[in-house]
């Protein structure tokens, strides 16, 4: 039923705590993990990959804790924000990596290398960030993984490949019946492909629900004066300008009667107003 289950997971570092994080990713679904820089997205991913040692809580990936049962990583494809492979030609790196995967399919690997316009003779160190990500993705997709964990995969990619990449993820999910956890602060990308969204802020989960539920839970309102008092309890964040305001509120059945302009927020609006709260614009000096 669930590919990933995190229950009350806590991890503390000096100056940062991932605080009682819980969320579930259903089989064959794509989850977008969003949050600003330093919110804890990468920490969650490293916990899921068994790189970090949790302080408390339960982590289950494909039924096992990857820290205690690393063999489960045979079924996980990973792409990190800053791919790190041995400084050799791609052919040699692949030769080093492939024996670790029982289901390695070299024909699939060659197909992706060709599709991504890479060459086995390229040297990893001299490749651009986008090319490194493509190579990492080719490795992640070549062993028939049941789960893809992607940490900021689209940052650093050109817009053409970014769109192709998102389409590819959708295709792979449908064809291979796998689940994808996809962290990003590019909310447009998440909005395009995710079935569910988890929003993390300062180490705490703010939202974790299906995309439809997330969008139906909020309303974006605009007005010329101040926020109507009836909506005060629903306020998430507000941006005040000289003669108007824009605010994000939790769903209010009568919002349209109270305010003239009510619309569905984008994911960026939801994240922006949560981060902003009622504070003044720090950049409006």
């Amino acid at each position, binding site marked *: 039923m669930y590919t990933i289950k995190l229950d009350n997971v806590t991890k503390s*570092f*000096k100056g*940062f705590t991932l605080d009682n994080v819980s969320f579930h990713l259903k089989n064959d679904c794509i989850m977008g993990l969003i949050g600003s820089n*330093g919110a*804890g*997205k*990468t*920490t969650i991913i*490293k916990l899921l*990959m*068994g*790189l*970090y*040692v949790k302080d408390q809580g339960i982590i289950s990936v494909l039924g096992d804790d990857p820290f205690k049962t*690393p*063999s*489960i*990583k*045979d079924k996980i494809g*990973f792409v*990190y924000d800053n791919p*790190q*492979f*041995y400084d*050799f030609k791609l052919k*040699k790196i692949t*030769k*080093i*990596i492939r*024996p*670790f*995967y029982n289901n390695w399919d070299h024909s699939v690997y060659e197909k992706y290398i060709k599709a991504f316009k890479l060459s086995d003779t390229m040297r990893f160190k001299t490749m651009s960030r986008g090319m490194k990500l493509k190579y990492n993705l080719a490795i992640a997709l070549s062993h028939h993984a049941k789960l893809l964990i992607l940490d900021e995969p689209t940052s650093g990619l050109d817009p053409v490949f970014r769109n192709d990449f998102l389409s590819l993820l959708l295709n792979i999910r449908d064809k291979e019946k796998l689940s994808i956890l996809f962290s990003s602060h590019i909310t447009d990308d998440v909005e395009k492909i995710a079935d569910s969204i988890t929003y993390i802020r300062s180490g705490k989960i703010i939202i974790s629900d299906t995309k439809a539920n997330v969008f139906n839970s909020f309303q974006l309102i605009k007005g010329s004066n101040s926020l109507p008092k009836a909506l005060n309890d629903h306020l998430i964040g507000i941006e005040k300008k000289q003669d108007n305001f824009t605010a994000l509120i939790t769903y209010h059945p009568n919002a349209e009667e109270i305010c003239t302009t009510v619309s569905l927020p984008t994911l960026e609006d939801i994240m922006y107003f949560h981060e902003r709260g009622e504070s003044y614009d720090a950049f409006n000096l």
Partner: protein
Amino acid sequence: MMRLICKDFKAFKHIIVFQTLIILMMMSFGIFIDHNGTLTALVLIIYPMTLPTVLLLNDIKYERLVISLPVNRYQFVFSKYLGGFIFAFLIIVIGLVYSYIISNFKASIDFNPLYSITGFLILCFPVVLCSSFLFPVYFRFSKSKASGVIILMFAIILIGLILGLVYLEKTLEASMQYSKEDIFPVITSHITNYINNVGQNMFLVQVIISVCTLLTLSIGMSLLLISKKDIGDPS
């Protein structure tokens, strides 16, 4: 674990080959300036001694990648010890074979003491000793922090060495009594005397127990440290 050792060989065979060639080259030049083979034999101690640590140092920066593979952290630690020792002992054996060949070109050179249990122990023990002290440090800290800790360790060893040299000065007179034909006359004579006193079998048992104790402590510490380590930089 074999997959990890094979990975290290594929990834770092250039280092292993380079170290082997350096040893052979230095031994070849060494016999021209060396009157009894001491300097040449030193090469056979120092280079294999550092090899496991050099291999670990080169791989530790890819720790995040390796631990992201379907690999157990404990297997990772064991593979570093086992792989390092296998590669180091392999180049010691190659060096010994080469020493046998080159000793035919200079009559005063006699590597015979190396072709004994004592000689082999002199060559192999530093490999175990060096790795046993350094590996836990690298498994605990990141590469940069570990370097700081190791500098501190070497400073302590240096002080110990200076104290050792003072001790050697005092025993210098005694060392003159030993044959100059031997390689490391003082230490080999001490070891030979000790072996004669306790008996060869007992000596071997003692060495095996010491090495096993040292390795058990070192591996145990490495396993404990890596099991608590967060791999990759914290956010």
